[in-house]
């Protein structure tokens, strides 16, 4: 059985489009407690739409964490039980002057 690399998850193109989305939503914004809800929702919504537009046979999970920069530390980790030849993930980290944004995309093949 040949391994079909076309069906595999390609992280690089997804990273660039996720980074563009996060940059366009946050650009030079300052952390604002009232708006952060709207930003996270907009980022995940726009990323999901772009991913669906790629028309690949994948199910997607997009998460986004936005944290205010106060000197506190944050760590994320993920553990996955899947088929590593077809499924994959991409993580994008964007830092602005007032906040950290970490966006993760998991792609699971159909």
């Amino acid at each position, binding site marked *: 059985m040949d391994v079909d690399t076309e069906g595999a998850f390609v992280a690089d193109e997804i990273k660039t489009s996720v980074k563009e989305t996060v940059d366009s939503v946050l650009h030079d914004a300052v952390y604002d407690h009232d708006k952060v*809800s709207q930003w996270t929702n907009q980022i995940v919504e726009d990323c999901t739409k772009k991913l*669906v537009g790629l028309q690949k046979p994948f199910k997607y*999970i997009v*998460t986004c*964490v936005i944290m*205010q920069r106060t000197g*506190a530390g944050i760590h*994320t980790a993920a553990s*996955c*039980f899947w088929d590593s030849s077809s499924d994959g993930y991409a993580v994008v980290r964007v830092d602005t002057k007032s906040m950290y944004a970490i966006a993760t995309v998991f792609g699971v093949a159909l």
Partner: protein
Amino acid sequence: MTENKETPAYQVQPTFRQKFKPMQAREAMEAVLKEKLQGQQYSVEQVPSWTRDIADAVKNKLKEFEYDRYKIIVQVVIGELRGEGVKMACRCFWDENSDKHVSFTFSNDSLFCTATAFAVYHY
């Protein structure tokens, strides 16, 4: 005229008994987080290994339930509590009938930890 022939069918949805049970998973996650983090203080050296350990422990616990044909993704975020604002959001493009997610947040006076598990049915 009725035919009593059983045509072989490929299952594309889990039966009711085979479906991922979010509440059961939530209890398992709660147990893991409390066991690992009860009484702990945020420490820069240890937290990276805690996040990895917790993610693996939750995933292994969910594997023990032996959900048939489900792929499991666990994401863990640990942050220090310093009065900062944090927001986390997620969107999924999947099959609402078979795929589920569940999340649990644990916090004490120095740190917070959010664990989210996604279960995706494989066709």
